[in-house]
C-alpha cells in the first residue's frame, strides 16, 4: 500500500485584517483577515518549517519535492537548501516544482509515482507560496501565505492512494511574467466558468469514472477556492452536497497558492476517520484530482500543531504599511556583507544543518563547532552532533540599535533541550512578551540579503507547549 504517511501545515503568525488593507485605499473590505509573512519569511522558510514538523512523524525520508510559484532562488535548487536545513542525506532525490499554483498536486502526483515505481519509503512534498498582488487589488485581500508538507510512502499509511486524473489547460487565469513582482489576475465570470469550473469538473469526472465512484460516495471534496465562495458553486455544479465540502478557512487564512490543496488536505486529515474517501483537487492551468482512502492508522496520528491552534496564535500587523514592508523589504535591501561561497561552503554543516560539537570527555555540547572543548579543553574525544531544534530562553534583550525593518530586534540566548547553547534572533514575538525560561523552537529565516545571495540562518520563535 502506498499513500500519505504524515502531514503538517505551517501558518505564518502574522495577520492583517482585510478591513485594514481596504481602508488604505478607501475600497470595499472583504470580511475577516489573511495570513501574511513576517519580513524574514519567504516560501522557502515556510516550506522548511512545514517539512521540519512533517518529518517528526516518520522515521526516514528519501526525497524532498518543493512546489511554489514564488521560490526565492530562480537558479539554485530551493529543495536542496530545505533538505540541508532539515539535515537530510545528500543521496536523496530533491526537486523544485513551479510554474503554477497547481505545482503542489503535480509534485504530489510525481512523488506517488516515484514511490510506486521504487522501494523508496518516504518522500516529503512541501508546498508554499508568498504571492504578491498589486496594492489596491482584490487579490491583495484574498491571498494568504502558508506552507504545508505531505509525506507519501509505504509504511504506516494513514490515507491510501487510490488513483488520480489530470488535465492541463493553456488558459489565462492568474499569471506572472519573469519580469513581474506581482500577479496579474484575469478573474471574471468568464474565467470562473471557462477556467476553474471547466478544468476541475473535467478532472473530477475523469477520476470518478476511472475508479467507478459517484460524487455522493466521496466523504470529503477538498477543493481549493479561487475566492470566498467559488468552490461551493463549482462543487454544486459537479454534483456534491455542501456537507461534503472541506471548509477553507477563508475568514482567517486566505488563498495560499501552491500550498492551498495541502493545507485543506491536512485539515481534512485532522478530522478524518478510517475508510473516509478524500478527493483532493489542485487547480491552475488545468486541474488534478487525487483520491485517497483513510486507513486505521489515522487513529494514532495526531498533528502537534492543528490548524485551528495556529489560526488563533496570531500577531496582527499594526498598519498596512508594515504588512507591505514585511513583504518588500528584502526585495530592495542589499547589505555589503563580507561573505562569499567559501565561508558558506565551509560552514554549511554548522550554519544550515546546525551541527555542533559533543565532548565525549566531559559531556558538554557546544556551538559553534570546535576543535577544543570549551569546558575541559579536550581535543581527543570531540564528535560532530546534530543540534536539537527546541529549547528555552536563558537570557535576552530587545535591541533598538540593531538595524531592522521592524524594530526592535529580540536577541536570545537559548539553552537547547538536548544540550548546547545558541545566540539567536527571536522572531514572531511581541517583544514585551519575552520571558526567561520561555520555550522556543528554531526556525530557518531569511537573515539578510547581499552579494547576490539570500542569507538564511536560524532564529527562534516562541513555542506553545
Amino acid at each position, binding site marked *: 500500500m502506498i499513500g500519505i504517511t504524515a502531514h503538517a501545515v505551517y501558518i505564518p503568525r502574522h495577520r492583517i485584517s482585510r478591513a485594514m488593507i481596504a481602508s488604505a485605499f478607501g475600497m470595499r473590505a472583504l470580511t475577516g483577515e489573511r495570513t501574511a509573512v513576517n519580513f524574514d519569511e519567504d516560501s522557502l522558510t515556510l516550506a522548511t518549517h512545514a517539512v521540519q514538523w512533517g518529518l517528526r512523524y516518520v522515521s526516514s525520508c528519501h526525497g524532498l519535492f518543493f512546489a511554489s510559484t514564488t521560490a526565492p532562488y530562480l537558479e539554485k535548487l530551493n529543495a536542496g537548501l530545505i533538505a540541508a536545513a532539515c539535515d537530510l542525506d545528500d543521496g536523496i532525490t530533491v526537486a523544485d516544482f513551479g510554474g503554477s499554483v497547481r505545482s503542489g498536486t503535480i509534485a504530489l502526483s510525481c512523488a506517488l509515482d516515484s514511490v510506486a515505481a521504487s522501494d523508496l519509503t518516504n518522500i516529503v512534498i512541501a508546498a508554499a507560496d508568498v504571492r504578491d498582488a498589486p496594492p489596491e487589488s482584490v487579490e491583495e485581500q484574498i491571498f494568504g501565505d502558508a506552507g504545508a508538507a505531505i509525506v507519501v510512502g509505504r509504511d504506516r499509511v494513514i490515507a491510501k492512494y487510490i488513483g488520480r486524473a489530470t488535465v492541463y489547460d493553456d488558459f489565462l487565469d492568474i499569471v506572472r511574467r519573469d519580469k513581474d513582482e506581482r500577479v496579474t489576475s484575469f478573474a471574471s465570470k468568464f474565467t470562473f466558468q471557462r477556467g476553474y469550473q471547466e478544468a476541475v469538473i473535467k478532472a473530477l469526472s475523469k477520476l470518478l469514472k476511472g475508479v467507478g465512484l459517484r460524487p455522493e460516495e466521496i466523504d470529503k471534496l477538498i477543493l481549493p477556492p479561487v475566492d470566498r465562495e467559488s468552490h461551493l458553486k463549482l462543487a454544486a455544479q459537479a454534483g456534491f452536497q455542501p456537507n461534503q465540502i472541506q471548509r477553507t478557512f477563508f475568514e482567517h487564512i486566505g488563498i495560499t497558492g501552491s500550498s492551498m490543496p495541502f493545507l485543506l488536505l491536512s485539515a481534512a486529515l485532522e478530522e478524518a476517520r478510517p475508510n473516509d474517501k478524500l478527493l483532493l483537487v489542485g487547480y491552475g492551468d488545468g486541474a488534478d484530482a487525487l483520491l485517497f482512502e483513510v486507513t486505521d492508522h489515522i487513529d494514532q496520528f495526531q498533528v502537534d500543531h492543528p490548524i485551528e491552534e495556529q489560526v488563533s496564535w496570531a500577531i496582527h500587523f499594526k498598519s498596512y504599511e508594515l504588512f507591505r514592508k514585511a513583504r518588500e523589504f528584502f526585495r530592495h535591501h542589499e547589505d555589503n*556583507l*563580507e*561573505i562569499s561561497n567559501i*565561508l558558506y561552503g565551509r*560552514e554549511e554543516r554548522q*550554519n544550515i544543518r546546525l551541527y555542533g560539537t559533543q565532548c565525549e570527555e566531559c559531556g*558538554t*555540547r*557546544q*556551538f*559553534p563547532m570546535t576543535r577544543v572543548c*570549551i*569546558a575541559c579543553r579536550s581535543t581527543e574525544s570531540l564528535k560532530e552532533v546534530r543540534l536539537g531544534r527546541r529549547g528555552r530562553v*536563558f*537570557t*535576552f*534583550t*530587545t*535591541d*533598538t*540599535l*540593531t538595524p*531592522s525593518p521592524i524594530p*526592535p*530586534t529580540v*536577541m536570545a*540566548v537559548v*539553552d537547547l533541550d538536548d*544540550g*548546547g*547553547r*545558541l*545566540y539567536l*534572533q527571536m522572531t514572531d514575538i511581541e517583544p514585551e512578551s519575552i520571558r*526567561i525560561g520561555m520555550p522556543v523552537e528554531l526556525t530557518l529565516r531569511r*537573515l*539578510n540579503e547581499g552579494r547576490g545571495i539570500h*542569507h538564511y*540562518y536560524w532564529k527562534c520563535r516562541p513555542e506553545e507547549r
Partner: protein
Amino acid sequence: MVESLKDKVAIVGVGCTKFGDLYDHSLQDLMVEAAQMAYEDAGIDPELIEAAWLGTFSPGFGGGKASITLADALRLYGKPITRVENFCATGTDAFRNACLAIAAGLYEIVLVIGAEKLKDRPVRGLRREGVHPYLDAGSTAPGIFALAANRYFHEFSMDRHVLAKVAVKNHHNGALNPKAHFQREVTEEQVLNAPIIAYPFGLYDCCPTTDGAAAAILCRADRARSFRDDPVFVKGIGLAVMTGKPYFDPTFDYIGFRSTKLAAQQAYEMAGIKNPRQEIDLAEVHDCFTWTEITNYEDLGFCKKGEGRYFIEEGHSTLKGDLPVNPSGGLKSFGHPVGASGVRMIYEIVTQLRGQAGPRQVPGAELGLVHNLGGPGSVACVVILGR
C-alpha cells in the same frame, strides 16, 4: 608568577584631551595634544622617548592598523612602536605592554597613547569589525551587555531603578570635570524615562560614542624622582581573556564577568592586596553601561555577588563614600573612545593620587584601581597604581 612588576615602573607624566564630539579634530590631532600635555607634565624632551605603544581600536583614516598611525602623528621615527588592540581593554593593555618592556629592562622612558576617533563615521554606536555574518547577526554593544543584565535581574530580582543610581552618580562626578564629554547632572526620573536602547538599558544607561585621547610617560622606577617629586608607581597589573562569544558558552552563568575576576586576582596578588574593599581608596572602572558598574563592584571584590545594588544604594561608591568609583564621571560622562578610555582612567587615578583633582578630589587617595572590560565581558585588564 615568577617576577612581579610591583614598584618597577613609574608614571611621570600624563595628558588627556577634552573628550566629546570633536568634529574639528583628527585622530592625529588628538594624539599630538595628549602627547604634548604628557611631555609637559613630565618636563621631558620628546627626544628621550625610547619606545611607544599606541592603543586604538578603529584608527580609520590616515594610518590604519599599523604603528605608523602614531609615528606619523608625532613624527616619532626610527623607534620601536607597537599598536595594541584588545577590544575595549585596548588602552590598559597598551599601558601594560609598555610596563612589561620597562620591567624587562629594555627601555628607561617610554610613551603610551590611547586614542580614538569614533565620530568620523556617521553611524550610531560602535562600528563592529570581524563579526560573523550569521553567528553574530543582530548583536550590538548594548545588546550583548543587556543579555547579562537581564539574566542578573532574573537571578537577583532587580530592575532598572538600581541602574539609574549609577547614571546619576557618574553624571554628578562628570559635572565636576571640565574634560568630560557630558558635564551635567541627571535625575533618576530622567534616566528611567529615557528611550530604551537595548532593554533594560535606556539612553542614560549607555555611555556615549566619543572622541578623545590620553597619554602617559612611563619610566624605570629608580629614575622617577629625577623627573618629579610625586611619581606614581605601578603596583600590579592583570589581564585575563575569556571567550569572545560567551553567548554560546553553556558553562557561563551570565551574572558577572570571569575576565574581571581573574584579572583582578592577578593584579591584587602582584600588589599584595588582600582586602580590596579596605585597601583600595578609589577606582576608575569600566561603566560602558550602568549595569556593568554594578557587576564590576562584585567582580572586583568590593562586595559579594548579587550585593552590588547595596554598594551603590548605600553610597559607598559616591565621591563622599568609602570607596569612590569613577570620580572622573566614568565612561558615562566621558564617553568611550575605545583605545583612549583605559589611558584616560590612568590619567584620572594619577591626578587623584597627586591630589590635583580639584572639586572631585578623593581626600587622602593612596592606592587606586583602573579597570577596563572589552568585548562581551571577554577581556579585562586591571591596573593598581599607588604613591
